[in-house]
Each structure stands twice: as structure tokens, then as C-alpha cells.
């Protein structure tokens, strides 16, 4: 049995949920189901949609929202927050080291080829220190829970973590639908995220910026799956939402084409991947980027958040070394655990993985969004056999982890409530300080028994409460 965060084995509510549970017990189920439909209407009306690649007829989809909140006590949160902060500090120190002296390699703690043969490692960043020494400004650390005190970090999303708009819209929707809940429970606010983000970005303006820094959000455009979020964040921060075609390098600055002429941008929160950022430096066929922006960057006239090349820190192959990395840079044991990980590139591990496929999750090193992975326990024999062949062919391309018994939180179903597996992505802002927003995005696997929470694979979301206590 998986650990349920709301209901104890003896059917009593767990402590953080006690007030909520009392409220829930007093609710009429039909009213809740009606509210659930209302929430869907709100989301559709607002246009909170995302695109699923490969679905021609459904270019805009809703991520299902479940109205039972995921509740975390203040005590639990403090522990998590300390662990996340330690990890984020280590990530930035690691990046700075990797692009400078590479002491961690010299100390023999991680293999050189793991870095230098990695596509996410950008030689263009060697010897360059971004403004404020910050590489990864916005981090979304994926965390799973297996028991009362068992938390694991599943992934460090240090490139361009998405989903924060859902955190904000979910809260907004809950407050609109159930204001009474927020009188009864002391829920810590997340609403000031856009303000904190803007402040955090502005504080890392480049040396070449005179006066008040001008911030902009760079989107790949309206067809990108997360376009809604890009527009939402620009709107909430009160900054421009720009596309590559709006920008040009003029007189050593990145400038945007406005109705009055070209105006300089100082800080660019980019939601475009490294590869597409600058066709002169990276992929020459990119139409999404700005030719020459890397030169402007290196000469200290723009801040790019997150910095190019941060992907080397959240790569799945690097992930397995995170305990060493944290210890190397912070001098302390990691406060949050890593999921045990077999690197299939190592013959011993590959042998073990092939022998235990039915109990492991195998992931592509560079994959994301739940694509290209094998969930051993739920896969058919034939699927496992086919996957084993792929594994043997390109072992370097895979890592494997045990299937964790993820905690569950109930969702509303027609007959009442039913437990479903969840994960958690808190959002972290790094400037001269590390700020962790108390809450985050809880993703929930809506299918009974499913462990895949990705929105592209039928996952939903919940409002996430961190209580004051």
C-alpha cells in the first residue's frame, strides 16, 4: 500500500489535512462535482491550455484540475526547503566549477567524459561568469514522497522549468471557488511569485545596464506548448513578451522592435532552448533565436536566465552523481535523498538492469515529458523485451531507477474520493539569495494505479498548500 497523505491506515485524517477533512465531510458531493465542472469552464475560458505534440486535432488541451488540495505541514516544508536550498546552491556552484576550473573532475569525483561528451555542455560558456555568478535563476525541483519522512529528489529542472502558471492559476481558482477554506486554513501565499521573479531577474542586470533594468520574456511563439505560461508570466510581471523576430543585436545590445523604434533589453528570461538561442553560435537553422546574442552576453550587455549551458547540471546522467556534487560543494551530506540510479553505461549496472527490468523504471538520459521511458512493472512482456534490445544497443542513453511507491492524495471521482499517485515541483528563485515559493505544482496521475504524472500522458494538477504552523 502506498503512503496516503490525507488518510491514515485507520481511516482518520492525517494531521495537516484535519481541518480540510472536516470541511470535506460536510460537503454535498454533487455540489463538489458541479464545482469541478465549473473549474474546467474557468480554465477553458481563461485559455489555460497547453499543446500536446502529435495531436493534430486537439491543438489546445486542458490539464485536468482536481479540486482536493495537496496539503503540506509547515514542519514538513521547512525540511524540504532546506534540502532544496542546499541542492540549488550546489547546482550553481557545480556549473561555475564546470565552466571554470573543473575541480570536481580533477578531484576524481565525476568522470571527465561525462561532461565533455555531453551535448548539454556548452564550450562557449567556458571561462565566462554570468552576472552575479548565477547560472540557474529559476529551478523546479521534482520531489516524490514514499512515506511520512521519505522524500526523494527525482529531477533537478535547471533549464527552463515550466508549470508555475498552473501553480498560480490553481490557487486562484481554489480561492474563487472555496473562499471559506482559506479562512479555516492558514495557507501560505504563492501569489507574489511574479513579483519575486521580476525582482530576482532585475537584481541580476548585466554590468552594461545603466538605470532601471528592462526585463523581457522570450517565447518560441504561439505554437509552443507552454505559450500560455509565457504570456501569463510576462503579463503578471508587467514586462514585454518577445519572440526572436522582435529582437536584433544593434550597437552591441539586444534590442526589441517597438512602435517607436528599437529599445534595449537588459534581462531576458528565455523560454527557448539553448540550441535555438543564437543561430550564429548554436543551431544555424534556428528561427527562434537572436543572431549574435551570445556575443552581447559575453561582453556583459545582457543577462540570460537561465544561463546557456545549465542543462549540464540537470542531465539524467549527472543526476546519479548529485549526492557527490552536493557534498563536494556544500561540505555536507545531502539533506534530500536521490533515487538510487543505475547508469546503464556501466557494464555491471546494465547487467543488473536487464535482469530486473520488471521492477525498474528506465529513462532516456536526455528525455523529458515522460516520453521514451519504460515503466517495468506495468509494461507487457513484449514491451520489456523490445526495450531490452534498445538498451543493449545504446546503454549510454539510459539510466534505471527502482519504481518507488509514490505517495497518494485523493482525487474527486464520481463515487467520492480515490487515492492517486502524486509528485511535487516547488519553484526556486536564485539571485543573491535563494527563495523557495511555499507551494508548487502537484501533478497527479489520474488513472488508477498509474505512476506517470506528466500532463502529456494524462496527468492532472492540484493546488498545493503549505500551512503556517
Amino acid at each position, binding site marked *: 500500500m502506498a503512503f496516503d497523505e490525507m488518510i491514515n491506515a485507520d481511516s482518520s485524517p492525517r494531521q495537516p489535512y484535519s481541518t480540510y477533512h472536516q470541511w470535506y465531510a460536510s460537503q454535498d458531493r454533487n455540489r463538489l462535482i458541479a464545482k469541478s465542472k465549473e473549474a474546467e469552464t474557468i480554465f477553458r*475560458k481563461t485559455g489555460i491550455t497547453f499543446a500536446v505534440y502529435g495531436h493534430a486535432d486537439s491543438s489546445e488541451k486542458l490539464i485536468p484540475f482536481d479540486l482536493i488540495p495537496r496539503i503540506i505541514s509547515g514542519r514538513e516544508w521547512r525540511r524540504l526547503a532546506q534540502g532544496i536550498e542546499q541542492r540549488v546552491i550546489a547546482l550553481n556552484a557545480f556549473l561555475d566549477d564546470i565552466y571554470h576550473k573543473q575541480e570536481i573532475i580533477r578531484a576524481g569525483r565525476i568522470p571527465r567524459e561525462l561532461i565533455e561528451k555531453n551535448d548539454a555542455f556548452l564550450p562557449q560558456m567556458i571561462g565566462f561568469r554570468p552576472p552575479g555568478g548565477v547560472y540557474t535563476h529559476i529551478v523546479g525541483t521534482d520531489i516524490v514522497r514514499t512515506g511520512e519522512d521519505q522524500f526523494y529528489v527525482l529531477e533537478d529542472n535547471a533549464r527552463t522549468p515550466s508549470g508555475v502558471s498552473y501553480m498560480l492559476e490553481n490557487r486562484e481558482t481554489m480561492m474563487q471557488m472555496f473562499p471559506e477554506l482559506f479562512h479555516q486554513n492558514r495557507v501560505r501565499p504563492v501569489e507574489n511569485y511574479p513579483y519575486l521573479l521580476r525582482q530576482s531577474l532585475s537584481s541580476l542586470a548585466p554590468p552594461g545596464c545603466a538605470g532601471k533594468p528592462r526585463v523581457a520574456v522570450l517565447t518560441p511563439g*504561439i505554437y509552443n506548448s507552454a505559450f500560455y505560461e509565457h504570456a501569463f508570466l510576462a503579463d503578471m510581471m508587467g514586462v*514585454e513578451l518577445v519572440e526572436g523576430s*522582435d529582437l536584433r543585436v544593434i550597437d552591441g545590445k539586444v534590442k526589441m522592435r*517597438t*512602435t517607436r523604434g528599437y529599445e534595449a533589453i537588459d534581462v531576458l528570461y528565455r523560454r527557448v532552448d539553448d540550441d535555438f538561442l543564437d543561430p550564429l553560435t548554436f543551431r544555424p537553422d534556428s528561427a527562434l533565436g537572436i543572431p549574435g546574442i551570445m556575443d552581447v552576453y559575453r561582453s556583459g550587455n545582457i543577462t540570460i536566465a537561465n544561463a546557456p549551458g545549465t542543462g549540464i547540471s540537470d542531465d539524467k546522467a549527472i543526476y546519479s552523481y548529485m549526492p557527490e556534487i552536493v557534498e563536494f560543494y556544500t561540505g555536507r551530506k545531502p539533506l534530500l535523498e536521490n533515487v538510487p540510479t543505475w547508469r546503464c553505461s556501466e557494464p555491471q549496472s546494465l547487467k543488473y538492469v536487464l535482469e530486473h527490468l520488471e521492477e525498474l523504471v528506465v529513462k532516456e538520459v536526455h528525455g523529458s515529458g515522460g516520453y521514451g521511458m519504460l515503466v517495468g512493472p506495468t509494461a507487457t512482456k513484449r514491451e520489456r523485451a523490445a526495450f531490452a534490445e534498445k538498451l543493449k544497443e545504446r546503454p549510454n542513453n539510459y539510466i534505471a531507477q527502482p519504481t518507488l511507491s509514490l505517495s497518494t492524495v485523493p482525487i474527486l471521482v464520481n463515487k467520492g474520493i480515490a487515492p492517486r499517485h502524486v509528485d511535487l515541483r516547488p519553484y526556486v528563485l536564485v539571485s543573491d539569495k535563494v527563495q523557495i515559493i511555499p507551494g508548487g505544482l502537484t501533478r497527479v496521475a489520474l488513472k488508477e494505479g498509474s505512476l506517470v504524472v506528466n500532463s502529456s500522458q494524462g496527468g492532472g494538477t492540484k493546488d498545493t498548500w503549505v500551512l503556517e504552523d
Partner: protein
Amino acid sequence: MLGRTANGLYWMFRHIERAENGARLIDAGLRMSLTRSESSEGDWDGVLQSAGVRELYDEVHDTLTSGDAIDFLLRDRANPSSVMSCIEAGRHNARMVRTALTRETWEATNECWIEMKAMLAKKARPADMPEIIDAIKRRAGLIRGAFHGTMLRNEIFNFSRIGTFIERADNTSRILDVKYYVLLPAVSAVGSSMDNLQWESILRSVSAHRAYGWVYDAELRPANIADFLISNGRMPRSLAYCYEKIVSNLGYLAREYGDRHAAHETAEETLASLRSQSISDIMDRGLHEYLEEFISHNNRLGQEITDGYRFYQ
């Protein structure tokens, strides 16, 4: 503001305006076919011409039937000016510039798209037409209401308004141009009931058949109809009214930016001539020639705005 944003706003409002005018044109066409007994294909020919899609229609259809014409004007994606194509394009632009819109304006636009997409998913039955036309007008009205009630009167507002009125001036002048011959003195001297019907349909396609009676007398006279739609500054779909709005919105931009463009000259000249020319001057010179020239000036103005405010480069 980004040039691309100004462009998005301008086209968002052009498309919404075009969708609403499209619904009006269909309404006028339906009305004409109701009020007479013989076949109404000729009327739809005129409606398709007013919408500027007569040739496009022939590329898609072999014969002209009222059912196909209505479908083509209402929901055919092959027709970029069909009501549904316009709503889709308007909403697409709105989505692109949503950071410039108030939540109310965006939601009104998005809900318009959601409702019309569902309503126009299948070919409409004749019996459903009143409800559909009504829904389009209502949705367009809600967007307009949200826009006027909530938007700051700044550059965003100005570019949106300019888009609306360039489109409206284009639509009104096209409607007049297609029917110019029924307004000519020589023909209209006859004053048959057939002409009356045509005149009324012109007024109906700009929702002005009642207002006409308030301003002029009850009798429909060609010169008065032309005057109403061209020179009357109080008629919200007249060319003069559209240009007053365009000039005033361009004027706000000039003051705010401290910069004038070719567009300012063009718009002011056009407005001045709309004010100074009497309708009999225009009729004497030739209504068709006048309208043709107007349409081409109006297009040029659109291009000058696009260039002056760096919509694309």
C-alpha cells in the same frame, strides 16, 4: 510597445470587425431572399461581391446556390473572410497579444471563439440562421463592451481602434461599391419597389435601416443613402465617421510618440475631402470611381501604418 504587438492588436480588431460585418451581410442577403418570390441566387452574387470573395467562391464551387453561398460566407475555412475564419484569426491574434489585453477583453474574445466553433461545427440549417447571426452579433458586442469598459486609453487602445475603423471603412465602401448602380440617379428615378428593396438591403447590411429613418425622412432616396453612408459623421459605419476616429487615434499616437508618419497625412487628407465634398459632387464625379479611389487610399493608409509603426520590420 512591440511592433509585433501593435500588428496583432490591429489585426485582431480588423478580423472581429470583419466577422461582424460578415454576419450582417448574410443577414441582409437572407432578408432579401425572404422578401421575394423568385430565385435569390442573384442576391447572393451581390453579397459575395460585397464580401470581396466572389472569385474565391467560384474556385471552390461550380454553381451558385444560396445554401453554398451562406456556408462559404459563414464557416468555410477556404474563405479567409468567412465569419469563422475571421473569429479564428481574431482570436489567434488576441492570444498572441494577450498581455496587452485586459482579462475581460481576452475572455470575451476566447468565449466568442469557443461558442462559435461549437455552433458552426456543422453546416447550418436554414432554421438555425437567425440564432447564429444573433450569436455572432452578440459575441462581437460583448468583445466591444469588454474592450470599451476595461481598456486603458493608451497606445494599445489606439492601434485596436485604428484596426476596427480601417476595416469598417473598407467594408462600408465595398458594400456601396457593389450596389453603386442602384443608387445612380438615372436608374433610381424609376423608384420601383425592386429598387426600394435593394436600397433597404444596403442599409440593412450596415444595420442602419432604422437609423436612416431618424436622420432623413421615411422615404428611401439614393442620394440620402449615399450621404448617410459616406458623409454623415454621426453614422458609426459611415466613411466620414471611420476617418474621424482613425485621425483622432493616429493623433493620440503622434502626441504620445512626438512623431508623425506618412499615415497621418493620408488620413487627414481623406478626412478633409470627406468633410468638404458634398454627395452631389461625388455623384457627379461618379460614385464608382470615387469608391474605387477611396478603397485604394484606405489600403495605402493601412500599409503606411504598418510601415510607420514597424509592424513587421
